[in-house]
């Protein structure tokens, strides 16, 4: 038997192979339809042994016990409830005999089949009791690890994880969800949400199984791999099932199935196996392809966010935390809490969400007067009802812990002071149940100034680090708002604290309404203070989303400082949005007709400035936001090109030109698709493009720059071996005193490398190049104006 730490070490050395399916294989071997596979453990143990033995001989490193449906609740329904313990114990014994020391034995456990409230009847206690019983038997029989697989809901899986960690800190644990083709579980979670929520729990491996064949599962797995920095596992079905002669068949052959091993490895799988329809032949071929290779290295995106089952709220944009569920000063709400009127509270939450809240703060007021069971149930159900994460604004530690246990996601915990004793208790909860913590910039007393606030914050940061918690990943600091009526100076001290925190890279929040306590016309003070705080770098606020004045002011300031897109439609082409639709759908002839018509009544330059350019700018923005795909961007560029040419024929100078842009793929590089796309998109934005092609010698590039005097040079280099050519070009240009900005792009480049190679800008895609060119142009125009309109050379 191996312990958790030995298995983790093994996973760092090589990728492990799981076994294949049980249910579909047993049916193939003759199991009657009306019997559960688990009944075989008692009624036909040889059949189970035979299948498991063939998995071991095929090369499985891990053998699962035949207990997927051996949950007390399920066995009760199947009429085997009284045999629960014998079935599970026997399953472990058979697996151990089949393995004969050659494979690890993992206790396998599927979901109860009961959805959580409000969709079904399941709740934390129901799940907890079921999983406790089976996990106790697994541990007693001495399995090497436990796997929860094919779960379709975050709460049920989280409860199962809680059970294991309540019973053992040393058992190896795998947690799997199952996703549909759109990358969602039955209750709406996506892989990013799964990674964020379970990444903060004490689980060894996260993974995906069932529902999809390898081809469909790959993009879902890829998404999980992008956001989870721990071990990963995957078990696809052998294709999507088809019905032949009334029987369900999984069509993917072992050869086709094993082909995908490389792809899953590439995206970081540490454990690979098969689910429905896969058998020993699939596993045997997978062993052959997989060999004994080490895991692939990968980069993971860390996202500061909180979650509900179906929503991830990231703090890279300003986050509105709705404050309305707080009975302070709201007698009706307080009565509804006492009456345990969950529907009223859900309505309150939904009203705030539709008004623009991202997160709902829940404060029960005088907690000692509230029914705790009601409060805990509400916290478990509300995220499903309102689709948004919650901020648990709770004082009593015991109540908070109960809520965190049942919360279906990664909640915001509001709050802890920076006092070590309180922080220590909250950190314990954070480590055990996940979540992000609001930390107040104060210890016992209200701080006098920014200095005292920052001192408290620094102590909290140090304490967190000493306790192995990264404050940048788990804390949001609250500078502690004091009513302006109490101290006007405090306003500046709070703003200074926010500024310091933002500069240091920490997220911030505050209770906005506190600022105006005791004043008339409070909404104006809220808006004004929020604007000041956002300008200093505030990342979220607990505020009233129903206050329209406040919300509009917030949106306006966020737009002014570039943290929110301008309202859609504002920059639409003057005529109507038809031009945009025509360009996006690639209708060249129709666009030419529209432009021809416009040219009859408008100056050519006006047609460009008021119609074509705004449309292309909007398309660029849509691409950057992910509203359209790259092919649509390319198609739009192609479509608009003849329209620009038509306008040019009507211009006096015969040339429409924002500025010249020279572009080339460097010497030695023949990969020019990226450069060609850049060329097309830049052209369609009104620039003149001189495309020198691919594999272009540095001397030739410099010669053209000297002759054409463009506003910028674009260089594309795809590989590490051709990237140094950028430096060669840059050096040659310097020698010739050619002060033309260089924009570079290509698969192996990044911002830092670009600068190291002597380039001025790194562009990650074609729209980036357009943006950079516009900035260069703007700079040149300003320079031109500053020179009193005299010509300036570039």
């Amino acid at each position: 038997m191996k312990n958790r730490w030995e298995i983790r070490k093994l996973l760092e050395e090589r990728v492990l192979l799981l076994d294949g399916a049980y249910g579909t294989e047993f049916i193939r071997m003759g199991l009657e339809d009306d019997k559960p596979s688990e009944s075989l453990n008692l009624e036909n143990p040889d059949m189970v042994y035979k299948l498991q033995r063939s998995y071991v001989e095929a090369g499985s490193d891990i053998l699962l016990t035949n207990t997927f449906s051996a949950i007390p609740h399920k066995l009760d329904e199947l009429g085997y409830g009284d045999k629960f313990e014998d079935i599970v114990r026997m399953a472990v014994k058979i697996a151990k005999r089949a393995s004969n020391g050659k494979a690890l034995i993992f206790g396998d456990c599927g979901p109860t089949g009961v959805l959580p409230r409000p969709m079904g009847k399941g709740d934390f206690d129901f799940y907890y009791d079921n999983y406790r019983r089976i996990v106790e038997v697994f541990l007693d029989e001495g399995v090497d690890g436990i796997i929860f697989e094919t779960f379709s809901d975050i709460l049920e899986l989280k409860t199962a994880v809680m059970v294991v960690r309540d019973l053992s800190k040393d058992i190896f644990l795998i947690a799997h969800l199952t996703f549909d083709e759109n990358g969602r579980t039955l209750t709406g979670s996506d892989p990013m949400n799964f990674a964020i929520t379970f990444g903060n729990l004490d689980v060894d491996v996260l993974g995906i199984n069932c529902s999809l064949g390898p081809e469909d599962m790959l993009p879902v797995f890829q998404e999980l791999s992008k956001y989870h920095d721990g071990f990963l596992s995957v078990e696809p079905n052998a294709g999507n099932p088809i019905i032949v002669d009334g029987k369900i068949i999984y069509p993917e052959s072992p050869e086709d199935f094993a082909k995908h091993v490389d792809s899953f490895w590439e995206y970081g799988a540490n454990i690979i196996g098969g689910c429905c329809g896969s058998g020993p032949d699939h596993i045997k071929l997978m062993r052959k392809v997989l060999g004994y290779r080490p895991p692939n290295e990968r980069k993971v995106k860390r996202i500061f966010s909180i979650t509900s089952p179906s929503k991830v709220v990231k703090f890279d944009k300003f986050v509105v935390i709705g404050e309305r569920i707080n009975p302070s000063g709201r007698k009706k709400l307080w009565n509804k809490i006492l009456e345990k009127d969950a529907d009223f509270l859900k309505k309150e939450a939904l009203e705030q969400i539709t008004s623009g809240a991202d997160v709902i703060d829940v404060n029960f007021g005088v907690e000692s007067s509230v029914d705790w069971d009601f409060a805990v149930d509400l916290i478990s159900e509300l995220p499903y009802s309102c689709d948004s994460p919650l901020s648990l604004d709770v004082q009593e530690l015991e109540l908070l812990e109960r809520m965190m246990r049942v919360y279906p996601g990664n909640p915001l915990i509001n709050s802890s002071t920076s006092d070590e004793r309180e922080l220590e208790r909250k950190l314990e909860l954070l480590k055990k149940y996940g979540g992000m913590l609001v930390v107040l910039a104060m210890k016992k007393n209200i701080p006098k100034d920014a200095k005292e606030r920052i001192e408290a914050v620094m102590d909290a940061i140090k304490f967190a680090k000493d306790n192995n918690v990264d404050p940048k990943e788990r804390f949001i600091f609250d500078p502690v708002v004091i009513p302006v009526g109490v101290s006007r100076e405090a306003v500046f001290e709070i703003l200074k604290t926010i500024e310091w925190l933002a500069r240091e890279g920490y997220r911030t929040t505050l209770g906005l309404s506190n600022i105006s306590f005791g004043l008339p016309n409070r909404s104006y003070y809220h808006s004004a203070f929020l604007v000041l705080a956002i300008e200093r770098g505030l990342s979220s606020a607990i505020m009233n989303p129903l206050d329209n004045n406040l919300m509009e002011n917030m949106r306006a300031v966020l737009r002014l400082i570039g943290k929110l897109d301008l309202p859609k439609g504002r920059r639409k082409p003057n005529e109507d949005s038809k031009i945009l639709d025509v360009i996006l759908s690639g209708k060249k002839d129709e666009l030419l007709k529209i432009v021809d018509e416009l040219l009859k009544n408008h100056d050519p330059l006006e047609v460009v400035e008021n119609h074509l350019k705004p449309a292309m700018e909007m398309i660029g923005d849509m691409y950057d936001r992910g509203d359209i795909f790259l092919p649509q961007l390319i198609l739009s560029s192609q479509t608009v090109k003849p329209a620009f040419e038509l306008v040019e024929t009507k211009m006096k100078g015969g040339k429409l030109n924002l500025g010249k842009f020279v572009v080339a793929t460097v010497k030695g590089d023949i990969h020019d698709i990226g450069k060609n796309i850049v060329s097309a998109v830049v052209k369609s934005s009104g620039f003149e493009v001189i495309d020198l092609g691919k594999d272009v010698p540095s001397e030739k590039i410099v010669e053209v720059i000297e002759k054409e005097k463009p506003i910028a040079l674009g260089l594309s280099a795809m590989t590490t071996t051709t990237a140094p050519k950028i430096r060669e070009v840059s050096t040659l240009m310097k020698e010739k005193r050619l002060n033309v900005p260089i924009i570079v792009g290509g698969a192996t480049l990044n911002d830092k490398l670009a600068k190291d190679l002597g380039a001025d800008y790194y562009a990650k895609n074609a729209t980036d190049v357009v943006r950079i060119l516009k900035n260069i142009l703007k700079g040149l125009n300003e320079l031109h104006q500053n020179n009193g309109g005299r010509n300036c050379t570039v």
Partner: protein
Amino acid sequence: MSEHIFTGSANDIKIPLKVVIARLGFKGMEKIPNEFEVLFERAERILRESAKPCAISKDFPVEESTGNILKLRDLTLTGNFVRKFLRDSTLITFILATIGHEVDEEIEKAHRTGDELLSYFIDGIASELVEYWVRYVDGILRREKKNMVGSMRISPGYGDIDMRLNQWIVKNLDGSRIGVDVIEDSWILVPRKSISAMIGWKRS
């Protein structure tokens, strides 16, 4: 030193649609969007008509193996990736695969005529076609070497494996037989839809 030359038909190489959709940038889509279907079919037809899949594989015994250094006849392989993937191998199979020059010409032709989207589609599907062609060759090699355990297939440029190895591979496998050459200085393979790779084998 066992050597094989493979030739195939582009029409027989199956590429999962999901993979192509992702490669072309249609993130999260289940199928090619309707408005691009005709162009996609055209690009695929041009590609399958112009592609000439062929490959060479050749085995080289490992003469000396210490830590992260493997010595073959006139080649020393070293680095982290060699240690991770090829350690303890007794034999290395080098593979050189391509789908031919005509594909490059079709990509270029579409670009020259201003049809960037067609050029982009042919290029994207071709990248997957050559990948799945190599997977096919890889599968044959693994079935042949039933009694050995093969490593992951790795390529020059991957991790810390030097791109310069391409020159050695092209020379020692005589890439000219399938029309594959390497660009001096950058060690990029020509035609552009070509792949070089190696698999390490140990006794099972």
